[in-house]
């Protein structure tokens, strides 16, 4: 599976482009992290990749086919998308929400079958929240909700998963739980494209990082090539130091960055 972005530009209004002349391509499994300051166009780009917004010019191709010409159900069977915010008017059960991931594979007039139920149960198991299946969505924590959405995407059986800041609003532990889960799914063969505000998350979990600033791609490559003191200063406008330390207990090498005082 290849997702190809060619000369993509997008604007909500005529005068100013949110992003412009973007070119990149992702074709092998891994975690692809889009890093950049607030308002740089990450979320908009992700929505375009999901086919929710139409480019002003340029093209996004899935396996050579323009995404604009594909049917919704076809896109949804290739791409799963987890938005940043959810506001549900009805308190569906966790199981029902996960089951809704089967929609792209169902005929207009049909409802999920026994097989679909089994798959939903399996995916809940896979992300470790089988015990929540009868809980109402409004009753569970933010971290659990994010796992529910990941399970729903798995039920969708896509090749690509898009996540918009999957760790925002999550506590210290849940951030790690979610990121490890994402890493695991990428290792199992999923192409994952996510946005993030935390360079350290990209350093630890991403296989590939793209820095975005003011609607442009500034740098692309492996985390260690892209997340440099200089690049971070350029896009965030603050001085940052990168530390390489060895874990005093295990001897394992760790890298992280920290703004300078």
């Amino acid at each position, binding site marked *: 599976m290849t997702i190809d972005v060619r000369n993509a530009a997008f604007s909500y209004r005529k005068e100013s482009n949110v992003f412009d002349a973007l070119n990149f391509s992702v074709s092998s499994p891994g975690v692809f992290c889009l890093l950049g300051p607030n308002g740089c166009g990450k979320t908009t780009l992700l929505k375009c990749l999901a086919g929710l917004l139409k480019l002003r010019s340029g093209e996004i191709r899935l396996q050579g086919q323009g995404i604009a010409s594909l049917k919704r159900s076809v896109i*949804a069977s290739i791409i799963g998308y987890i938005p940043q915010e959810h506001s*549900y*008017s009805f*308190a569906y059960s966790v199981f*029902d929400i996960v089951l*809704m991931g089967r*929609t792209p594979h169902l005929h207009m007039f049909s409802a999920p079958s026994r097989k679909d139920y089994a798959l939903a149960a399996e995916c809940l198991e896979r992300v470790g929240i089988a015990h929540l299946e*009868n809980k109402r969505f409004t009753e569970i924590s933010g971290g659990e909700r994010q796992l529910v959405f990941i399970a729903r995407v798995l039920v969708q059986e896509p090749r690509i998963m898009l996540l918009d800041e999957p760790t925002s609003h999550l506590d210290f532990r849940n951030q790690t739980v979610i990121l490890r889960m994402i890493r695991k799914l990428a290792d199992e063969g999923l192409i994952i494209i996510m946005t993030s505000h935390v360079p350290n998350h990209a350093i630890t979990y991403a296989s590939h990082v793209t820095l975005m600033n003011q609607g442009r791609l500034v740098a692309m490559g492996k985390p260690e090539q892209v997340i440099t003191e200089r690049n971070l200063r350029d896009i965030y406008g603050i001085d940052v130091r990168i530390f390489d330390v060895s874990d005093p207990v295990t001897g394992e090498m760790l890298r992280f960055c920290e703004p300078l005082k």
Partner: protein
Amino acid sequence: MKKHRVLVNTLLISLPIAAMGLSLLFGKYQATPRDVLNVLLSKFSPTSDTKISPMLEVAVMHVRLPRVLLAMLVGMSLSISGASYQGLFRNPLVSSHILGVASGASFGAALAILYSAPQIMVQLSAFLFGLIAVGIALAISSLYRTSSTLTLVLVGMITSAFFSSLVSYLTYTADVNLKLPAIVFWLMGSLAGASMKNLGFAIIPMAAGIIVLLAIRWRINVLSLGEDEAKALGIDTRRMRIIIVLCCTMITSASVCVSGVIGWIGLIIPHFARMLVGPNHRALLPACLSIGGVYLLLVDNLARTFTSSEIPLGILTGIIGAPVFAYLLTRGERWS
């Protein structure tokens, strides 16, 4: 949990049948359960030799039966379209009349009454103007570049207000002795005019709309997650929206044209049903059919037997509906 579900399902299936049977017994003409049963059976086996008085037969077959069936149908229609709209608009406070069907149909009926049209023309005119009002709402909303559900609700309010003003104008100019009472009585809603002919007229659009809504009810769940999520899950949200609006309009327009404007049903029955079976539309829509039908049937029994003259149905559903809704809200609204 399982036991509870079985019990609820049994009730939802058996209650409508029991309520319809019981309702055939109520009325000015005294009839025992045996009499009623005999009349019904004689229709199935014309050779049966039990003597049936013609008065009894008229009372049961031509007065009560069509009215009971129509009450069920209208109750079912208003509740299922209310529940579908609440899902589509992601808002538990909208009802079947949100897009202006009721005011459009009211205008159509008032106009026909004003021109002394026969009853069938009044109904036809109500049906057509119900469709026209929603058609206008859809047409205006498609002019906006962002054709979201919110735009549709706002435009629905606009067409509603417009047709309500026209209705006010017609009632204002109507002849106080001849036309006004007929218009006002129609606007308050009643099933007093129920007949087999009415039933035959209304049942086709109602059944068609209900069947389609039932067929797509699982997708209404996905739609209720919001526009972006529904699209990301592979739903053509625009097409689904149009299908739901068309079905609901056909159903409500048909019920308004045989019963006048009956409020509250499309708002409170879905809430009540949600408390019983949860928010999943796969269970919710069938539950609404059952509860809505029974509810309107019982209220209509009151309307036709409580006092010596008929009480307009719309008044009763409002008087009963308001406190019931207030009570439901205090129950904590577990599912929405």
